[in-house]
């Protein structure tokens, strides 16, 4: 595949560029300075062949839409393809010239299995790759496999990948144990987990053993529990015996007592008690009968002793009537004196009334008494008249007072109207409150504004501006812009300074190298290749002349030659031969000097190249700096004219900013002053108005504050007076209203007086009074009449009471006389006393009668009681007789018999109680059994046995605790089995470690086998390709080194690995490590070219693209390398991009030989 032309549009920073490759030789040296688009061209070719990557950075300037890569390529089979590539989805970006889509396969099938990466690594080479490749050859020390792979195959990263994989494999597993290896870490974890799993395992045997021990412990507990039960029962038995034995002894005593009553007849239960009861009842019945008889006799005697008066009892009702009347009369007799006093007092009061009415002392008031409503009417009207008159007097006084008040107020208001204080002023003190302060503020601001203005004007002049306006209008960049420019220039200056430093360093290197060369050349001639060649050339030239003459057909030429000259020729030829041979012979001896000279030459050349490059860079930077300055001056002419120094300009601009800020502040201050003036103007006018209104005069030189103070005082006085005026106005209104009210009230009273008088005359005349009588007097008379009415009524009542007292006295006397005739004793004369006596005697008789009645009842009851007692005695006698019959004894023996019976019964009861006690104490066991158990046992012995048994019980409790503890421990051990016991965790951890080991080993085996495969594959390739590849590379290497190396050969290193070595022209073998850098680079290049030739022989040739490959080569080797590339150009197209003129110059020789073309990228 050969590119005939290649155009890239809107690609990277290149708008459009076309490379036309002339027909003919395959080597095209594409020359272009830096920034000419060299790298862009390289990338564009790869993109054309393999598509523009999705994230290509080449679209940053023009975007992707118009990006186009167009090429005309000629294939090995003669086909020509004209294709265009655009950016887009993979597989749809290739078109023909007319824009129609073309199958990607059209290009792909000629690329074969070569992808972008392979193309770039195998068919692309730059000086860095070349140098790196050379260095890697040194590191590999000629390993053929690596040479083939890295140099020949472009697989420069394969060894790294291999080594990385080897490291990975080593970190996974090796037969040697190491802590960093993943397998062994997992193995450790496995072993720990496995140990834990084994330790934690509960086998059936272990479980059964534990269970057996648990059962044993439980059996021990059961056994002890059984013993405890037995001993507890034994203790209970002993304790029971201890409890019951004393009672059993007592029971035995009672049985002996009962034996003494065996002679008693068989009597029923309770006979003794019945006998005792019967005897006791008999005694009681006899005593009660005697007592009843005595009581009956006493009552009979008592009744007989009580005597009664039948006459008094018969007149009981009359006597009670007399007694009541006598009480009434006695009471009236006590009240009579009071009634007499009361009559005297009423008469005295009536005398007073008569006097008040002007009647004679004997006047019959009762006959003259007026009707009560007349008296009340006069009293009412009199009260009304008195009240109305008092009100009228008060109203008249109030009216006069209000008239006076109104007159006074009217006079004060008239005076205020005259003084002008009857109207408001229209101004307040507050309006002028801060007038003085405002005035001072304005004055201060004006002074500050003036000072700032002067300072600004002065500084502006100092900075060279005519005035502030010019200063403000000055066009200049801002600080950031200047700083940016300043930074840019500083960077440029820094770069220039660095270049100067590097240039100086390179000059020093050059001088050192020159000094070394001079030093080396000062000694005998150095057998460099050039000097040897030169010496041989001289020898050849001399020999050619001699030979020409010697072989000349014209023998006279030799003959004509003087013998001296011929000798001289021979000597010269011999000397030259010797010199050349000597030089050649010394080459190996002076190898060190030769190498030093080579090195010095190379260093000098490199230094010169570097100096030249640095000088170019410096010039470019100088030019760039000048352009920057010009651009700056064009952009900011005013600023540049005024200040060319950017730092000063920046300072000026920054100060300008400060001044402009102050200027703006000054303007703001002026505006503020104007605003204050505007604010103050209406207040000053108000002050003047107030001064005029209030006629304040304090002199023309008075300050604002003095004026404000005076005006304020005057305003306050005016405001106070005006407030008084308003207050009095309100008072006048209020008093006027009050007066109107008073007048109305007075008028109403006068009207009511007329009506009153109409009623007054008839009312007073009804009391016999004249119409003209004063109400007070009329009221007094009416009151006297009302009093007289009450007195007259009281007099009448008192007289009636005295009359009724006399009637009662008389009636009492008559009743006593009626009763007295039937009595057998004499009564007193006084009725009240007689009544009292009668009542007293009646009460005595009634009491005696009552006592007799009671005694009669008691006597009857005593008789009945006596009968009942008699019957009881007879019953008791009968019962006793019955018992005697039952016991077949005499009544006299009954009591003794009953006593013995009772004693016998008591003994039996006691025996029962004892037997019950024995039973209860003996845990309800029958007495017989208990007696049997206790038979023959001594209580002390039993207690001793009990003590021993309790000791045994205590011991068993202790044993039981131990056994229970054992059971608990063993049960706990059993319960632990219900949990997983950690074994599952351990097993899980073991499985985890196993998984880790498997994972590590799987990867290890994968990598190890892959490595084995690769090494074996490389061995196979070496075996198959080594000879042809080395043969071709050897020829190329020899050519590129101008035969300094005769070629390359294979050898075996100390480790037995096959390696390549260089063979010098002298036949000396040089290992790759001992080769110079340049030689190694050439070796690398030779292998690469040989490999590409091999590829091109088998597949569609692809262009080889070299980017500044020859940087590290000296002129001769550079030319030789060019020769190699030209040689490769015969096989496939070779594009050598370079920005070095000397490369272009060197190419001229090949161009002249029609072995290369030069394409100038700048003109493309």
């Amino acid at each position, binding site marked *: 595949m050969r590119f005939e032309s290649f155009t890239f549009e809107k690609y990277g920073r290149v708008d459009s560029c076309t490379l036309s490759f002339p027909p003919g030789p395959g080597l095209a040296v594409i020359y272009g300075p830096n920034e000419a688009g060299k790298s862009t061209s390289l990338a564009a070719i790869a993109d054309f062949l393999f598509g523009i990557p999705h994230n290509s950075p080449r679209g940053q300037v023009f975007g992707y839409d118009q990006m186009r890569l167009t090429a005309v390529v000629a294939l090995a089979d003669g086909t020509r393809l004209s294709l265009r590539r655009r950016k887009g989805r993979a597989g749809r970006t290739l078109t023909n010239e007319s824009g129609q889509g073309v199958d990607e396969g059209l290009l792909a099938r000629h690329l074969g299995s070569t992808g972008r990466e392979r193309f770039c690594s195998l068919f692309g080479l730059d000086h860095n790759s070349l140098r790196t490749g050379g260095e890697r050859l040194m590191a590999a020390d000629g390993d053929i496999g690596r040479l083939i792979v890295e140099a020949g195959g472009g*697989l420069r990263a394969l060894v790294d990948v291999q080594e990385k994989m080897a490291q990975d494999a080593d970190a996974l597993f090796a037969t040697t144990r190491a802590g960093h290896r993943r397998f062994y870490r997992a193995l450790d974890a496995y072993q720990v987990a496995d140990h834990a799993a084994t330790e934690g395992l509960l086998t059936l045997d272990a479980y059964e053993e534990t269970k057996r021990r648990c059962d044993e412990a439980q059996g021990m507990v059961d056994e002890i529990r059984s013993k405890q039960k037995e001993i507890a029962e034994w203790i209970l038995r002993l304790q029971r015996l201890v409890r019951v034995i004393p009672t059993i002894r007592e029971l035995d005593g009672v049985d002996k007592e009962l034996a003494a009553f065996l002679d008693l007849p068989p009597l029923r239960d309770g006979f003794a008690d019945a006998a005792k009861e019967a005897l006791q009842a008999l005694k009681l019945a006899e005593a009660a009968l005697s007592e009843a008889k005595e009581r009956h006799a006493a009552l009979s005697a008592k009744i007989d002793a009580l005597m009664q008066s039948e006459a008094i009892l018969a007149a009981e009702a009359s006597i009670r009537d007399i007694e009541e009347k006598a009480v009434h009369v006695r009471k009236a007799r006590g009240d009579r004196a009071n009634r007499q006093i009361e009559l005297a007092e009423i008469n005295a009061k009536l005398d007073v009334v008569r006097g008040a009415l002007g009647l004679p002392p004997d006047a019959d008031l009762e006959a003259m008494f007026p009707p009560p409503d007349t008296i009340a009417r006069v009293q009412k009207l009199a009260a009304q008249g008195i009240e109305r008159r008092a009100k009228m007097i008060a109203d008249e006084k109030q009216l006069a007072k209000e008239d006076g008040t109104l007159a006074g107020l009217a006079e004060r208001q008239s005076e205020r109207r005259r003084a002008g204080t009857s109207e408001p002023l229209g101004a307040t003190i507050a309006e002028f409150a801060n007038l003085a302060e405002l005035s001072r503020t304005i004055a201060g601001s004006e002074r500050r504004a003036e000072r700032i203005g002067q300072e600004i004007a002065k500084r502006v002049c100092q900075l060279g501006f005519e005035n502030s306006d010019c200063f403000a209008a000055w066009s200049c960049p801002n600080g950031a812009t200047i700083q940016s420019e300043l930074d840019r220039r500083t960077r440029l200056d820094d770069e220039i300074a660095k270049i100067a430093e590097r240039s100086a360093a390179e000059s020093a290197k050059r001088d050192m190298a020159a000094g070394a060369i001079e030093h080396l050349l000062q000694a005998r001639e150095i057998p460099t290749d050039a000097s040897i060649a030169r010496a041989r050339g001289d020898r050849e030239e001399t020999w050619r002349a001699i030979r020409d003459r010697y072989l000349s057909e014209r023998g006279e030429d030799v003959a004509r030659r003087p013998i001296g000259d011929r000798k001289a020729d021979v000597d010269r030829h011999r000397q030259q031969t010797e010199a050349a041979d000597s030089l050649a012979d010394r080459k190996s001896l002076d190898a060190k000097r030769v190498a030093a000279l080579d090195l010095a030459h190379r260093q000098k050349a490199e230094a010169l190249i570097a100096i030249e490059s640095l000088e170019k860079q410096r010039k470019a930077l100088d030019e760039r700096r000048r352009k920057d300055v010009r651009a700056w001056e064009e952009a900011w002419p005013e600023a540049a004219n005024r200040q060319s120094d950017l730092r000063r300009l920046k300072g000026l601009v920054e100060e300008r900013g400060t001044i402009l800020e102050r200027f703006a502040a000054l303007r703001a201050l002026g505006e503020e002053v104007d605003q204050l003036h505007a604010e103050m103007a209406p207040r000053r006018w108000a002050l003047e108005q107030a001064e005029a209104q209030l006629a304040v005069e304090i002199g023309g030189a008075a300050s604002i504050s003095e004026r404000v103070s005076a005006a304020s005082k005057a305003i306050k006085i005016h405001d106070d007076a005006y407030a008084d005026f308003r207050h009095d106005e309100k008072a006048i209104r209020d008093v006027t209203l009050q007066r109107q009210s008073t007048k109305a009230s007075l008028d109403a009273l006068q009207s009511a007086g007329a009506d009153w008088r109409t009623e007054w005359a008839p009312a007073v005349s009804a009391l016999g009074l004249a119409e003209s009588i004063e109400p007070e007097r009329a009221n007094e008379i009416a009151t006297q009449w009302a009093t007289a009415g009450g007195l007259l009524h009281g007099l009448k009542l008192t007289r009636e009471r005295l009359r009724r007292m006399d009637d009662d006295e008389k009636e009492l006397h008559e009743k006593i006389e009626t009763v007295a005739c039937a009595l057998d004793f004499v009564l007193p004369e006084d009725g009240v006393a007689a009544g009292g006596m009668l009542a007293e005697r009646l009460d005595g008789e009634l009491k005696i009668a009552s006592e007799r009645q009671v005694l009669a009842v008691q006597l009857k009851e005593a008789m009945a009681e006596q009968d009942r007692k008699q019957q009881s005695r007879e019953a008791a006698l009968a019962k006793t007789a019955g018992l005697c019959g039952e016991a077949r004894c005499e009544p006299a023996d009954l009591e003794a018999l009953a006593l013995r019976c009772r004693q016998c019964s008591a003994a039996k009861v006691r025996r029962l109680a004892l037997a019950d006690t024995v039973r209860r104490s003996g845990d309800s066991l029958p007495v017989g059994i208990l007696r049997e158990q206790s038979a023959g046992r001594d209580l002390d012995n039993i207690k001793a046995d009990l003590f021993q048994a309790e000791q045994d019980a205590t011991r068993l409790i202790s044993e039981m605790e131990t056994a229970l503890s054992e059971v608990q421990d063993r049960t706990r051990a059993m319960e632990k089995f219900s949990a997983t016991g950690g074994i599952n965790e351990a097993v899980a951890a073991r499985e985890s470690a196993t998984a880790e080991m498997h994972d590590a080993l799987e990867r290890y085996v994968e990598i190890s086998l892959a490595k084995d495969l690769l090494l074996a594959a490389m061995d196979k390739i070496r075996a198959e390709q080594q000879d042809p590849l080395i043969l071709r590379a050897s020829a190329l290497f020899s050519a590129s080194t101008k035969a300094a190396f005769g070629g390359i050969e294979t050898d075996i290193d100390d480790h037995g690995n096959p390696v390549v070595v260089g063979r010098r022209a002298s036949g000396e073998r040089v290992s790759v490590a001992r080769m110079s850098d340049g030689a190694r680079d050439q070796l690398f290049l030779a292998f690469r070219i040989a490999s590409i030739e091999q590829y091109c022989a088998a597949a569609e040739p692809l262009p080889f693209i070299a980017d500044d490959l020859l940087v590290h080569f000296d002129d001769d080797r550079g030319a030789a390398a060019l020769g190699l590339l030209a040689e490769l150009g015969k096989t496939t197209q070779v594009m050598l991009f370079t920005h070095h003129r000397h490369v272009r110059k060197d190419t001229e020789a090949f161009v002249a030989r029609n072995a290369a073309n030069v394409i100038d990228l700048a003109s493309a």
Partner: protein
Amino acid sequence: MVNFRFIHAADLHLDSPLIGLAKKSEDYAARLDDASRRAFDNLVALAIEEDCRLIVIAGDIFDGQWRDYRTGLFFVDRMRRLRQAGIRVVIIAGNHDAENRFANRLEYSDNVKLMSQRHPESLLIEELGVAVHGRSFPQRDIVDNIAIEYPSPVPGRFNIGLLHTACGGSEGHASYAPCALAQLVNHGYQYWALGHIHKRQELAKAPYIVYPGNLQGRSVRETGPKGATLVEVIDGDVARIVHCPLDVVRWIVEDVTVAGIETREALLPAVRERVELAYASCDGRALAMRLRVVGSTHLHAELAATAPSVREEIETLAVGIASNIWIEKVEICTSPSAASADIDPTVAGTLRQAVQSLAADPWLTLRLEARLKEINIKLPAGARRDELFQVLRIEGPEKARTLALAMIDQGQG
């Protein structure tokens, strides 16, 4: 007849560890070590919740090699719980139980019936009208058709055949107590409760012949929902059967295709989608997942060469989705995209050919065996060596070939 529900379970393999999960965090053990126990607890809870009257367990309650007696105690304890709930349990010993040292020496509560090892036995449960027939494995390797000897169905009863068998043979399972499906169908039972095969299968519906599968998946070979079968019997017929997932850790194998994925970065979102989908299907259970990256891609070489870091990235991603997701393994099964059929005359091409040729050569097998020999002496006996070696022998050469080719591709630069 009495209507009732019963549960058919099998292959509990109690306390059998989960295989292949590397420890990723401290709570790893706490989450996974008792997975089989928690799954069985789920079974007990289900039986109580569904008011079941009977549970039949068709063998392999325990692991054959498992010696920790606590496992037996755990099972006995759960049997007591079922007794308290009034649930009868009928079990047969499977090949693993026969191999186990303690399985037949446990002291069960009276609600449990372990069927005889000597001959098929029938248990009549009067209150349910059920006859359960079954026989325990007397030893691990029963190769006879023991189902032939199973009793005839009891008339008027719901007959359940409890059998541990490789019915019809099944890949991956030993062919113990083999029998034919037709034989079971014709035996006359209403329900055959089978065990031994860990994958749930419904072999027939008339009558129902069912493998419920195991209760908890134990490795990546046992994927998907695991549990037991709930059977409802109405009027003497199976009215419905429901498979109830009871596992606590779900094993899933998912493929992530890289077709159309341009960059390594774009791979992770695709993985995330698969992992999230898989986790969502687990209903909150822990997820143990194997991811297979498949498809042809130009990333093939990169992925093959950096497989460990791919795995780490995926594990990190999984942790970000949920804390109870374990990535068991990430398999890079990709292939190079659109390999050219043209002869590659470059050194790389020749190298690739050489690798391909050598990989097909017995030489590589010899190299593998040499590596295995190295490993063999270091690997502990209990670390499932045979399993690993089997995997390595099957997959190792191919993986090595793929990696070597990837390294060649990576080497170009």
